[in-house]
């Protein structure tokens, strides 16, 4: 038991060290690298906290896709680094902020050390209602049954973020292709990887989605892997991002939320409420929602990384 605690403490110290380095290091690019390792370490912490679903999400989205996005941005912003480094904040501001941040941390730490006993939980309620959802993974049940409304709204957040990113395009380039065009390399190692990995990745992504009903995994984690495969293909120059005006692309992007909304509305007619599933049909309906959702999320994540349209079609 104490050995496990020592490992946990070591992990916590490592997380803090990497985080401090990320904040303190001078070069932006180095800070982003620090952040990616911070995310991977956090994923380990989630495993230690027995939250494997969260660990998968953290590794895939919190560290993985966010990392790609930030690395690409840091690389493009390199020319500004010198000028920005000259704008050091004043010592007084640093000092006051440090004190305030320390107070917040200390307050939160005190709350951590003074836990409420017994800790309130909805675990029993979540488990007791699992049979009605036909699912085995209670986290998936929270996401797609008990609190499906949250998840539906969060899909809207993703669509809006993409619309927001696109809206930054200059007028003349509207309808063009997002992001830079990566040159096709004929025999690079990346090309090799981009040819070999996607079939495997697609299988793994679909597996993640499927297994999410009963075990850790689900639509998000699966779709992140699909998105990663797509990003890999684009970066190797084997494919190109589609123009943002394409009808089929728009349909792919909203298919998931649309089906989700439609199933939710059908609850008025075939079940007792909005977003309710009729008895016995919960699991098939949840899978009906999750399949297009995975596709839509994958496309949205990939395009969010690609950025606004930058090239005429």
């Amino acid at each position, binding site marked *: 038991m104490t050995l*496990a*605690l020592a490992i*946990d403490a070591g992990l*916590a110290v490592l997380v*803090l060290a990497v*985080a401090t380095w*990320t*904040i303190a290091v001078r070069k*932006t690019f180095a800070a982003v690298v620090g952040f990616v390792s911070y995310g991977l370490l*956090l994923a380990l*912490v989630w495993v230690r*906290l*027995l*939250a494997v*679903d*969260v660990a998968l*999400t953290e590794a895939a*989205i*919190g560290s993985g896709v*966010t990392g790609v*996005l*930030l690395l690409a*941005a840091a690389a*493009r*912003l390199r020319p*500004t680094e010198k*000028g*920005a480094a000259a*704008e050091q*904040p004043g010592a007084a*501001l640093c000092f006051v*902020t440090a004190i305030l*941040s*320390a107070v*917040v*941390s*200390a307050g*939160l*730490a005190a709350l*951590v050390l003074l836990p409420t006993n017994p*800790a309130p*939980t*909805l*675990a*029993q309620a*979540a488990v007791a209602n699992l049979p009605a959802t036909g699912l085995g993974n209670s*986290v998936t049940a929270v*996401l797609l049954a*008990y*609190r499906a409304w*949250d*998840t539906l709204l*969060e899909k809207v*957040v993703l669509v809006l*973020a993409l619309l*927001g*990113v696109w809206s*930054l395009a200059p007028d003349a380039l509207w309808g063009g292709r997002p992001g830079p065009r990566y040159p096709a390399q004929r025999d690079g190692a990346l090309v090799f990887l981009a040819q070999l990995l996607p079939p495997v990745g697609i299988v793994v992504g679909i597996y993640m989605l499927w297994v999410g009903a009963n075990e850790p995994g689900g639509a998000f984690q699966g779709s992140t892997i699909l998105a990663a495969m797509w990003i890999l293909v684009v970066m190797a120059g084997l494919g190109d991002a589609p123009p943002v005006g394409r009808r089929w692309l728009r349909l792919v992007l909203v298919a998931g939320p649309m089906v989700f909304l439609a199933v939710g509305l059908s609850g008025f007619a075939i079940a007792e409420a909005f977003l309710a599933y009729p008895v016995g049909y919960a699991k098939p309906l949840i899978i009906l929602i999750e399949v297009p959702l995975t596709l839509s999320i994958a496309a949205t994540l990939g395009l*969010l990384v690609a*950025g606004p349209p930058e090239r005429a079609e």
Partner: protein
Amino acid sequence: MSAATVFGLCGAALVGLGLYGLVVHSEPLRKILAFNLLGGGVFLLFGVIARRGAAAGLGGDPVPQALIITGIVVAFSATALAVALVLRLFQETGRATLRSDAPVGARVTDTDS
């Protein structure tokens, strides 16, 4: 002391670190990084609460775990939008800072966070 407490303290410290970075850094990309770091700390604190709610044969309360997953996705969306704004600003002005390009009369002071 349990694992949950250790990671709870870690989360508390991460929140402070993230807040510090968010206010002190002047480069927007560094602010975005700090925001993500801060978010990680917040999620961790929430995760500790989930862990402490372990019951009914589960290793943790699934409700906060689901909320954290939603939160991670929302944070990613925010990061994507913010990064796109920074890059666009860089394309327009050749700079990626917020200091000197406020409109006339907006009176930006030193503390732009």
